[in-house]
């Protein structure tokens, strides 16, 4: 090392004499000499134990708060897809749902377990429905949704880009399979008002679905999918469609149907009059109706709270184990 010190000192005198070199100080010089300042935390046992302890102390309260929020949410879930099929069709549900001549009306009675504060969100939930299937996800044309017939290239919409040699607006599998069950709610004698506006993202309404684009040649093919659209309403106001077109990532998903803007009291009985149009029978999917209040964290979901609690407890456990180890054999 004697040599090293010597050589570096001679070089430092030489560096000044060599022209065209960056100054001895300053960021550029430090960068070229790879000597930028750096912080090097040393992992001492104490620091590690303290870190884990701190992590535990942060995570556990967060988990508790999250859980509390989740428990404050009141949720009513009602599966109706089987019960709404008349007894005689139970053996062949597909035939029932495909037969337009049979009335699809159905009534459900829901009991409110706890008082629910407005707004109460109405969702329909589909199970085993693969909105994330590649063939399905890709079958849409965002350009056409915005520009309508003015946009000709509908090739992404295959296999449903046109029918009878005319383009379809909105084209593609997603729009074609639009959910078409409808729900009406009554509490006692009076009808519950369901607000079906503002259920879609505002940005979607304003920027992704054209205000001047009207449905055209929709559901006119030989093979009808889901709901029909009113050709006189522009796409930007067809909020059901907009909600539906936001495909779900999971095969079990909920879609917002509307909001009830009245409080519901405990033990109220809600009568739901629904039209059971949508075919989930051919692939064994379930249909559920969900009424739910919301907390600051959204709907009912215990997972986050439990996960936080788990991580917190685990960190504290680790810190205790380390502490014991450290006490037994300190370095």
């Amino acid at each position: 090392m004697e040599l090293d010190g010597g050589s570096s000192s001679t070089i430092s005198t030489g560096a000044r004499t060599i022209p065209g070199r960056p100054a001895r100080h300053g960021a550029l010089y430090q960068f070229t000499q790879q000597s930028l300042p750096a912080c090097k935390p040393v992992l001492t046992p104490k620091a590690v134990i303290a870190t884990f302890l701190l992590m535990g102390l942060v995570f556990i309260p967060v988990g508790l708060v999250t859980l509390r929020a989740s428990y404050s949410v009141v949720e009513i879930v009602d599966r109706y897809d089987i019960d709404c099929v008349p007894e005689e069709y139970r053996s062949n549900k597909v035939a029932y749902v495909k037969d337009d001549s049979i009335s699809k009306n159905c009534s459900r009675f829901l009991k409110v377990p706890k008082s629910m504060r407005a707004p109460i969100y109405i969702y329909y939930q589909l199970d085993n429905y693969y909105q994330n299937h590649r063939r399905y996800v890709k079958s849409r044309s965002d350009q056409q949704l915005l520009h309508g017939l003015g946009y000709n290239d509908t090739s992404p919409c295959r296999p449903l880009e046109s029918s009878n040699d005319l383009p379809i607006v909105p084209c593609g599998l997603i729009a074609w399979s639009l959910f078409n069950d409808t729900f009406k709610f009554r509490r006692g004698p009076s009808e519950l008002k369901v607000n079906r506006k503002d259920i879609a993202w505002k940005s979607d309404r304003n920027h992704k679905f054209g205000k001047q684009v009207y449905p055209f040649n929709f559901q006119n093919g030989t093979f009808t999918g889901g709901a029909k659209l009113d050709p006189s309403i522009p796409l930007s106001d067809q909020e059901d469609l907009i909600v539906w077109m936001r495909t779900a990532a999971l095969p079990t998903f909920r879609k917002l149907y509307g909001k009830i803007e009245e409080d519901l009291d405990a033990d109220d009985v809600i009568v739901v009059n629904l039209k059971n149009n949508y075919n989930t029978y051919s692939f064994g999917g379930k249909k559920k109706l969900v009424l739910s209040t919301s907390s600051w964290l959204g709907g009912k979901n215990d997972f986050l709270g439990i996960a936080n609690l788990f991580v917190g407890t685990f960190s504290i456990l680790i810190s205790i184990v380390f502490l014991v180890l450290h006490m037994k054999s300190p370095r």
Partner: protein
Amino acid sequence: MKRYVYIDDDETSHELYCDNRISNRKYTVLNFLPKNLWEQFSRFMNQYFLLIACLQLWPLITPVNPASTWGPLIFIFAVSASKEAWDDYNRYLSDKKANEKEVWVVRKGVKKLIQAQDIYVGNIVWLRENDEVPCDLVLVGTSDPQGVCYVETSALDGETDLKTRVIPPACMGIDDELLHKIKGVIECPSPDKDVRRFDANMRLYPPFIDNDVCPLTIKNTILQSCYLRNTEWACGVAIYTGNETKLGMSRGIAEPKLTAMDAMIDKLTGAIFIFQIVVVMVLGIAGNVWKDTEARKQWYVLYPHEGPWYELLVIPLRFELLCSIMIPISIKVSLDLVKSMYAKFIDWDQKMIDLETSIPSHATNTAISEDLGQVEYILTDKTGTLTENKMIFRRCCISGISYGNENGDALKDVELLNAVSSGSSDVVRFLTVMAICNTVIPTRSKTGDILYKAQSQDEDALVQAAAQLHMVFFNKSGNILEVKFNTSILQYEVLETLEFTSDRKRMSVVLKDCQNGKILLLSKGADEAILPYARAGQQTRHFIEATEQYAHLGLRTLCLAWRELKKDEYQDWSLMFKEASSTLVDREWRVAEVCQRVEHDLEILGVTAIEDRLQDGVPETIETLRKAGINFWMLTGDKQNTAIQIALSCNFISPEPKGQLLLIDGKTEDEVCRSLERVLRTMRITTSEPKDVAFVVDGWALEIALKHYRKAFTELAVLSRTAICCRVTPSQKAQLVQILKSCDYRTLAIGDGGNDVRMIQQADIGVGISGREGLQAARAADYSIGKFRFLKRLILVHGRYSYNRTAFLSQYSFYKSLLICFIQIFFSFISGVSGTSLFNSVSLMAYNVFYTSVPVLVSVLDKDLSEETVLQHPQILFYCQAGRLLNPSTFAGWFGRSLFHAIVVFIISIHSYAYDKSEMEEVSMVALSGCIWLQAFVITMETK
């Protein structure tokens, strides 16, 4: 195969042999694009990326926009192609310069000035002093009446001293004018790369000489790229031209070097590729099964009943594309980028600037910095690399009185200067021997200064020193030497020169003092070769003490002695000497024996001590690097003794009894075999002992060993940590590198001269010292540094950091792509195994470029340990050498980490959205930000 060269007969040679056009180019304008593309696509990774890019053009299966693959791919290819093109263009320019140089050539009896590329085999080429030789020639005439000319062969073998070349006896005495008309035939072997051997015959046609066949040796040739020195002109017959010259044949094509790390990364890439194929197969089959059982029931997916023929392939191919990001295309770009940063750091390093010349270190090859950290063997040249290649006369001991002991420089010792000016006879004789007992040729430069051309640097130092002590050797014409002492001019006639051989370890000259007609024998040599022959009664004790003292100081000692010969004694001996020098059998031995007869009863004049200064910090550097587990081999063209001495003084080998030197020698196959066996046996025994064992081998024995006992020699190479190879040729140096490489060692070759170029090119890493022997080595090398001691910093600091950083960066690149990829795979299980991409093209690209590739570049500044710590504890390099930071098990660790992280991210993001709207875009963004945070966390944790 033989070739017959007809002197000055163009027609036959035009058909048979190539012209003298030199070409080092790899491409031509026409074949550049196909050849370059072919070369680039011979790398597996590139083929893979091309395949992926092509598949992405099929919209049915592509999950993302094809531009995201094509853009980077084209960019990468364009960059490396233009780099290649630029290099090749520079090669073309330098070839062109050499090819268009003008030379004088005799054609059909007429002397013409033509371009060097138009020389044909058989042409007579005329050269003037200081001309570069354009092709291999057999000498036929020189300006010297004795038929001697001097050439400098440094480009060929790195030796800077002048070599004498003589014209064959058959051409002796031919008049200048007649040389134009000379006709004849030379029978020579087909071109080879041996620069030490040339066995040929020449027969001149009448009227020049009778039909006797005249044998030719290498002594009669001057080879391409040598320089003609101290000779007014010389001419010769072109025998090998163009790329068929000895130099051209030995010029290996520098192959692109691949670091051990690159190889490992390629291997890991292959493993990932196999993993990918397996995943794709499994998911593809599962996807097809799911499609047939489930998807057909999902009416909203609207699967047609009859698919096209390729339907079965669609899902596997989709998964292939989905998984293609497992092998990140960005890895090549970011690795290239950080590698060029490492190179820049080397260029910028102020601690590696040579202060004498202000030359900074330079990394020519920007791609192999990591290999520096994995070096296991260093093969070093001696002269100019370890030493400064400056011999300086330091001390002397004349008849018992030591000079220069006080100030370390005899030339400034007042006592010696006084003794010289007072003309003490011992001192004058000592100086005379110093000045003329040698084979030095004095020349005059344009300014009138005397320059010495010496075969050995020692002689040069002695003559220079004598000149400074007013004994100036200023002229040599024929056999007459002229020396100026103070103001008087003394003349001597050289009668015989008893040349130096490594067996005799001394050289003598017999000369006649023209002043008084006395015949003198002047000798100089190693102490053990001179002192035993002292005249009876002379006290040699203080000379022995002096030599021991000097040797202890690391100086090279020579003893000087003289004797007066009686006339008849000389005449008798002279006859014997002439006879011995003309024998054909065992000539060397016979001559030595005859020399012995006159070299006795010497009067010892004194001892000289010459310093061949080691470069600053060489012993420390070698010691540090050896502590770091690096083995050193010294390959030198120099004599065995000098090599061993230098090796001792720079910690290369330890002196007895700690160290042991094992000699491999012998002139015949059997001898070499025996000594090789012996050395091997000793090696095997001593490997367990803590003893420094080194073997010493000379070029001749090495050649035999490499030819016949390659296996044994390879075993020896593996066993020994240290070796000294002396008298080795450039191609032998390269062969030694080859042997070590074939044993899977990482080799670094360091040298400074043209003779090291091949070894430098052959080694995994070539380091050139931009030194006195020109810039050839530095230019051919991957790294050029100013001084040997910078090697320590280059390896321990730059090499090690580069290795660590690349190890992190490459594994991290795989980690972050695998992370995303695993999430995609998990997602495919909940999306009906249909190959849906959870992430859209934009976020994938952003993830790959902005969120991961760019931040990780800070790792080029990452230092796990400070430079000082590393230099103090070089043992830490073992980690790098053994490849502990990048190997299948560390990679498996990263693989597991990415799998674990992917599971965590996936479960959290899926479960937080379970029983919710779970819009795909939201989920994908949450998962993506999870990945980004996690990998940012990983970077912070892993960089220090």
